[in-house]
């Protein structure tokens, strides 16, 4: 080895070079990682958000042949493994519709019917009830369901027929006339049926279950009334809770209030057809607040109750276009506000009412679609057409979200007019979710605006003074002191704002107003008094110590304002400011309001703006200001005309950074506002911001739901917003730096 040192050194060199290359490679990839991290955040947010803007898809899984004439009703099991067909004879056939063994009949069950079937009806889809109207005036209600068992650890479904009202039919007409047409519904303890009999009477019956003490069986006791209505009757509808009956007679819709079975009232008659068109069918939307009417010119209109001057009235809200055809049927989903149209030309349409979206339209059959049923999870549907039953797979995860729905006024059910509303969740399943980003974006801007209104004047003035007038010894102390505030956790600022400042301001509102007025006056008075002081005292205080002289003044004014608060209140506002604001000014006063947020968030933003602006002013080359002073300009003139002008891009960048921080701040607004999504510029009311909204709702939102994705969208909006502000600020600052280096 020692005999050949040359070679040895060569080999170590190689390994050293190799190590060098490795280091270079890993360090470079480490640097690129930063970029990757930012891009990852960007694209991941986008990836989660993107599905809400995807349109719906409908695709046929497969079909099997049946005798179309026999079938009166269709239904699907929750996992879309089994479909069932209800026949006129009372038989119910169950078919396997999984990929494996598609179309195989699994079971055939029968409902015993005491008389011939004269009509058939289905309940609202989420109840899953079907009913036969018989020609002896009776109605038989049946519910196909499935029992789950696990033999050998394998999930197995066994179809059964349930009779939620017992195996005896209900008497819908005591006179025993055949039921020609009927509608029914069942709530927890009540069943309602409205039926058209062969002798053209419309009978409304409400049944209440009474338990027989001896046998324990439930007997359904009816209360019946005949509705006062003449002429042709085309359709009967009833809301799931049985409180309202709709009767369609050609183009007239009669609406009855049926909350009290013994006193069914006609509340409104609508002439609801579109111009030059006739109504062909009607249906209630999920939640039963909206009535959908299909016209033969292809237009489907939505009606719901709105508060008007004459009380509540049904009004036409909006219309949807389908293709023109002679018969259109409407089918609603279980919970969401989606509805389907099926037509005589074999076309299927898929719409969402709230977002006014046409989600899908296409031809799914050659001939007319005779019957239709949607799956409980709205991910599949059955259609009966051309003597076969087809299973359609539907991809329609987020119909409630459209770009326009997020940013434009939407007319929600029960509201008097279109509005911007954010109300993401509610206790009930068939709740119409209201996703408007406008109120929370508005809240974000409002909070940021009040914060900036408070922070910008103070931060900029302080920055200018510190950079330009203050002595360097003092500056060394003042700058870090203000900057240390940037490190203060915002949760502490928020907590102080919510629990200390908010009650303080509420109690001493006049003091705050007095402070605003007295502070400038006090400072100016001190300044004036200073000029009157004898020269030898003035000269003893070094130049640039104004702020130290002013500290006791500011403290005194602060004390004075709070001490006077009570007297001002008694003198100007009749002893109670809050009452004055509510009664005299007609404004709502929240304890946690924009004023509190403005001050608290202002404090969070001041150090950011101060620090950057101070740097910008300080780094203006000295020869510029010296030149100006040498030409006879005063300090102030030099500052305004030379220094600030030169530093203005830096100041702009400081404000941008501050704004970016105010927009994204979470904890302060979360703790110092009431978090109500209202749209009002009032300084005495709170707001809900994008960031706080995410913090409040994210932990409770279901992964993958529209709500979850919209919250990601809110985060994405924040991300883009701050990205633009920061990049702009950085760009301006770079330009400034280049400019100075050339000066």
């Amino acid at each position, binding site marked *: 080895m020692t005999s050949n040192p040359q070679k040895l050194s060569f080999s170590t060199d190689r390994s050293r070079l190799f190590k060098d290359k490795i280091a270079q490679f890993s360090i470079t990839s480490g640097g690129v990682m930063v970029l990757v991290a930012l891009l*990852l955040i960007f694209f*991941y947010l986008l990836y989660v958000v993107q599905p809400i803007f995807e349109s719906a898809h409908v695709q046929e899984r497969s079909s099997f042949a049946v005798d179309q004439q026999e079938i009166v009703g269709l239904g699907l099991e929750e996992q879309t493994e089994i479909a069932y067909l209800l026949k006129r004879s009372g038989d119910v056939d169950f078919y396997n519709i999984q990929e494996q063994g598609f179309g195989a009949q699994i079971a055939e069950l029968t409902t015993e019917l005491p008389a011939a079937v004269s009509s058939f009806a289905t309940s609202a889809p989420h109840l899953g009830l079907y009913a036969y109207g018989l020609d002896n005036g009776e109605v038989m209600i049946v519910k196909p369901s499935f029992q789950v068992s696990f033999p050998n650890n394998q999930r197995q479904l066994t179809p059964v027929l349930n009779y939620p009202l017992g195996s005896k039919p209900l008497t819908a007409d005591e006179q025993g006339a055949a039921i020609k047409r009927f509608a029914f519904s069942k709530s927890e303890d009540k069943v309602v049926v409205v039926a058209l009999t062969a002798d053209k009477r419309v009978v409304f019956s409400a049944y209440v279950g009474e338990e027989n003490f001896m046998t324990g069986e439930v007997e359904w006791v009816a209360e019946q009334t005949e509705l006062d209505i003449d002429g042709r009757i085309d359709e009967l509808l009833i809301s799931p809770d049985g409180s309202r009956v709709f009767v369609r007679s050609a183009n007239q819709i009669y609406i009855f209030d049926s909350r009290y079975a013994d006193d069914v009232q006609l509340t409104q008659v609508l002439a609801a057809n579109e111009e030059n068109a006739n109504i062909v069918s009607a249906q209630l939307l999920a939640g039963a607040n909206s009535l959908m009417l299909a016209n033969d010119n292809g237009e489907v209109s939505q009606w719901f109750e709105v508060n008007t001057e004459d009380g509540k009235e049904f009004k036409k809200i909006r219309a949807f276009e389908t293709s023109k055809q002679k018969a259109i049927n409407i089918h609603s989903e279980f919970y969401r506000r989606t509805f389907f149209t099926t037509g005589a030309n074999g076309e299927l349409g898929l719409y969402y009412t709230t977002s006014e979206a046409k989600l899908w339209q296409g031809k799914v059959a050659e001939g007319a679609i005779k019957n239709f049923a949607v799956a409980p999870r709205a991910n599949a549907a059955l259609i009966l057409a051309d003597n076969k039953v087809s299973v359609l797979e539907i991809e329609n995860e987020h119909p409630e979200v459209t770009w326009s729905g997020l940013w434009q006024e939407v007319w929600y059910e029960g509201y008097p007019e279109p509005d911007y509303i954010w109300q993401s969740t509610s206790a009930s399943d068939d709740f119409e979710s209201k996703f408007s980003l406008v109120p929370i974006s508005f809240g974000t801007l409002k909070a940021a605006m009040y914060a900036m209104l408070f922070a910008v004047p103070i931060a900029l003035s*302080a920055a200018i003074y510190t950079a330009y007038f203050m002595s360097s010894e003092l500056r060394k102390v003042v700058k870090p002191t*203000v900057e240390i505030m940037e490190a203060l956790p915002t949760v502490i600022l928020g*907590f102080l704002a919510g629990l200390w400042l908010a009650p303080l301001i509420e109690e001493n509102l006049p003091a705050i107003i007095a402070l605003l007025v007295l502070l400038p006056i006090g400072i100016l008075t001190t300044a004036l008094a200073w000029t009157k002081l004898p020269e030898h005292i003035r000269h003893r205080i070094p130049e640039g110590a104004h702020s130290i002289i002013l500290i006791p003044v500011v403290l005194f004014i602060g004390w004075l304002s709070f001490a006077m608060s009570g007297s001002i209140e008694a003198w100007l506002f009749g002893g109670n400011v809050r009452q004055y604001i509510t009664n005299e000014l007609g404004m709502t006063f929240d304890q946690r309001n924009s004023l509190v947020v403005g001050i608290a968030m202002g404090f969070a933003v001041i150090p950011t703006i101060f620090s950057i602006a101070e740097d910008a002013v300080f780094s203006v080359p000295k020869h510029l200001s010296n030149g100006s002073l040498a030409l006879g300009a005063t300090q102030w003139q030099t500052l305004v005309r030379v220094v600030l002008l030169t530093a203005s891009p830096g100041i702009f960048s400081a404000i941008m950074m501050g704004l970016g921080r105010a927009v994204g*701040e*979470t904890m302060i607004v979360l703790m110092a506002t009431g978090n109500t999504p209202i749209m009002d510029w009032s300084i005495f009311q709170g707001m809900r911001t994008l960031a706080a909204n995410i913090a409040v709702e994210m932990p409770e939102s279901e992964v993958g739901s529209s709500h979850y994705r919209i*919250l990601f969208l809110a985060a994405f909006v924040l*991300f883009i917003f701050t990205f633009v502000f920061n990049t702009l600020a950085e760009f301006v600052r770079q330009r400034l730096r280049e400019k100075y280096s050339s000066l």
Partner: protein
Amino acid sequence: MIRQWFKSGSPWIWMTGGAVSISLISVIGLLALIAWRGLGFFWASPVHEFHIQGSVEQHTVIGEIYDREVVPASRVRQSGVDLGDFQGEELTRYLIKTGNREYVELDFRWILETDIQSQSTPHNLAVFERSKNGNFYGYIEQVIENGQPVRGDKVEKLEELVERAVELNEQALDLQNGDIGHINYELERLRLKERAYELDNELTHERAAELEAQRQALRDQYKELEKTLFQLRDDAKRDQVVVKDMRGEMVTLPLYQVLDFWLPNDMGFFAKVGHYFGQLGKFIADDPREANTEGGVFPAIFGTVFMVMLMAVIVTPFGVVAAIYLHEYAAKNAVTKMIRIAVINLAGVPSIVYGVFGLGFFVYMLGGSIDQLFYPEASPSPVFGTPGVIWSALTLAILTLPVVIVSTEEGLSRIPSQVRQGSLALGATKAETLWRIVVPMASPAIMTGLILAVARAAGEVAPLMLVGVVKMAPTLPLDGNFPYVHLDRKFMHLGFHIYDVGFQSPNVEAARPLVYATAFLLVTVIIALNITAIGIRNHLREKFRALDN
């Protein structure tokens, strides 16, 4: 003259000066407020006895003065209170903390200055700190040891007995959390093991029997320990103290619920100082009680420190490497420019956005995949697919990455280029120069960056609310059960503790001093970290300035 003065601009200079004063006053005032409220909480304030008669019927109120405020007399009259012949314009009202929560309706009450007939701070008034229902105020009447009233010095004996009960309670708690907790943990592991065998179809009869045997052994152990536990608890229940409360009624307090007691009106200054530090120590070292509104904040301190350390371990290498790349390797091209923009933006993106990203990407995507791959037996309950300390640390690592980068880069830029050139000229490769010369010289700057990152992370709450923080974590992320470090666990955090106790607790009034104390703790830590970082940075600047010349 005035016009001339305004034209000279000097008033405006004063105005800008005023802005500085306002900023300074608010910064210092804010810190002083937190310190005053936070630190005052532990001081044994005197307990007053008020005899009240006025608009209300005569009664006695015993308690601490919690707050006082001056209200206009007119407003009091407006609300329907008869002030009698009170003439003044304003009057003071006191908020009294009366404790004794289970016997009186309100443990805080406002009393008007005009209603107070007499006020005194009598001797022998004791404050009992209890594990349930908060403080109790009253006169010690009788101390009962093992069913027998104690003769002689009651206070001294009571001290001894309280100490004994506290000791026994602690032993019981240790047993419960230590050995019994361990057995439960082992049982759960056995269940998961069995489930894993089942999933792999490897659960043979021998294995099942073996598992069952192990389980049985653990259960037997458990029974033994349980016996000891009950024994300890019974022992602790032996003694009582009889106290006369402000209603004049005798109340028997079982000593196992009493954590401490003191006679504030009889304490001298030094006794109070001693008491003060005792209380402070308990605040830092104890677990929270009564839905976090009482007791200490130890788990929150531990959680914060643990998470922040984990984060520091993750963020340092990435941050340093990225800074070295930017300063030493990066060419002046578009990619470098984009990386710089990325750094600036990472610093500016709102923290809640990181939380959302962390929840979606780390927790659900990454954590979910880990669960599917490695923990199928735990399904359907998630292991890593749920918010936890590791995801919090990762999320905050991205959030603080720019802090480390900017700080390290500044440090690198201060190292004179002659040093590098010297090293290169002597034949060292670039990597060697970096490793032997540049990085060691920049290490204080790296330290600064790290400290600033830690300070930032310690105060951040919004993203943590989504990725792992909880109001009450039953177990710490570090304990005696294998594998000792549990990165999947949720944790408590000082910042979130402030939010939770201040805004979500049922009794905000009672919890408020605790929130101030927690806030003070957090602020102290963060400001200390920041000042250290600034100190190191300034020192570094001086050092390299000397090197430059």
